[in-house]
């Protein structure tokens, strides 16, 4: 039987080992944690929001938006829960998907040529590198009368199809500065992580969830089956949906500009 290392030596060796262990870098966690806590609180309380002159048919929607905003007013983490024109609401159980569709075709709004889209929206339309020209470009009118651009690309070997769609990537571009135009409603157990796209704070949402677009005709609901990155680029809110894992989606997102 070989000599047995005394405990004292083993302990010293373990401490020495501990000082050289390699760990992956710890991600920033506070933004995601505080965002989840604020969102859960907002979803639970839904406080009334008095004093705004509202368009009647938009009242209900705006109440919900305002409830979230009111709670976050004055807190530094507020901006982390809202990325530009998109609000994220974490709820214990997502609403029944009624009547919702997977984002595709006509559901995404009027189909236009890319150049038309560029001419008709009030912000620069940006594209990722390496995907080529979009397969389809759609324009949807937002609650405030501005336009939201939705670009889709066919799936290919490097960009597998998003569940229920033929698309490998869906990029939504929303104008900034008008307040929330869309909600994401995610269950508390859906993964919501704070990540970075370049130098911009971003959210990564993986797992099925609901997306609601606020349009002049009401709330348009979509079931989201892909993985989503949300961030802001030069004042435009970008939402990139793919079936890619986080690291690859971030790489793709960082080519946009």
């Amino acid at each position, binding site marked *: 039987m070989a000599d047995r290392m005394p405990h004292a030596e083993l302990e010293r060796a373990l401490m*020495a080992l*501990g000082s050289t262990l390699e760990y992956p870098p710890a991600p920033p966690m506070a933004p995601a944690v505080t965002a*989840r806590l604020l969102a859960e609180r907002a979803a639970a309380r839904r406080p009334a929001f008095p004093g705004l002159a509202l368009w009647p048919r938009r009242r209900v929607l705006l109440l919900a938006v305002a409830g979230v905003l009111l709670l976050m007013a004055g807190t530094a983490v507020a901006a982390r829960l809202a990325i530009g024109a998109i609000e994220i609401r974490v709820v214990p159980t997502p609403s029944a998907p009624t009547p919702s569709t997977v984002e595709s075709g006509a559901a995404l709004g009027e189909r236009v040529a890319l150049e038309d889209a560029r001419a008709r929206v009030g912000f620069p339309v940006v594209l990722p590198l390496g995907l080529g020209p979009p397969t389809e470009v759609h324009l949807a009118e937002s609650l405030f009368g501005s336009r939201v651009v939705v670009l889709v690309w066919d799936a290919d070997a490097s960009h597998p199809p998003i569940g229920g769609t033929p698309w490998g990537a869906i990029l939504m571009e929303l104008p900034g500065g008008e307040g929330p135009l869309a909600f994401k409603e995610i269950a508390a157990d859906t993964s919501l992580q704070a990540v970075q796209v370049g130098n911009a704070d971003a959210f990564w949402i993986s797992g099925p969830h609901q997306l609601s677009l606020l349009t002049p005709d009401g709330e348009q609901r979509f079931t989201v089956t892909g993985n989503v990155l949300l961030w802001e680029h030069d004042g435009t809110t970008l939402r990139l949906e793919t079936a890619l894992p986080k690291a690859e989606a971030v790489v793709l997102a960082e080519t946009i500009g």
Partner: protein
Amino acid sequence: MTDRVEGRPLEEAGLIELAKDGDVQAYGELVTRYRELAFRTAFLITRSAADAEDAAQDAFVKAYYALERFRARDSFRPWILRIVSNEAKNRLRSARRREGLALRAAEDRRSGDAAPSPEAAALDRETKEALLDALSGLKENDRLIIAYRYFLELSEAETARALGIRPGTVKSRLSRALDRLRDRLPAERDAREPLEATDG
């Protein structure tokens, strides 16, 4: 081994009180302080960066709601680690399919980095690998008590709280874990000179 909790106890206690009153920002500050430790703890259990991140984040959310059960006299560090380790273990059980990453030790540090301790410098690669191999074969509880004491440098009292065991049993459990670790080390190693460089 010293107890590092002494850092800034008043400030931390203040943050905890604010968080108990619903101040999410104050809680975010606590998260920032403990995220590294929480993540490493979760990683030592799950050996997957993604699972460790999810486990730590979920643990922080759960801990917020459990704050009212946290007693001001206690140390926050082992309390949060216990929640983190439970989350990580749950995640591990539901994700057995995944093969965990092996823990790795850094190669010799380059000049410009902080100087390694004499022990670290002397611990040769073969010994590191043998220890890591042996550790990976241990049961979870043995691995965790060793990790808490020697890798994350928790005091005995903190280790007891983090594991939810009586302080008096830390020594005996640790001793048994070390025995089992030693049993897994290659028999041919000359244990009398474990810290000295070998010729390979």
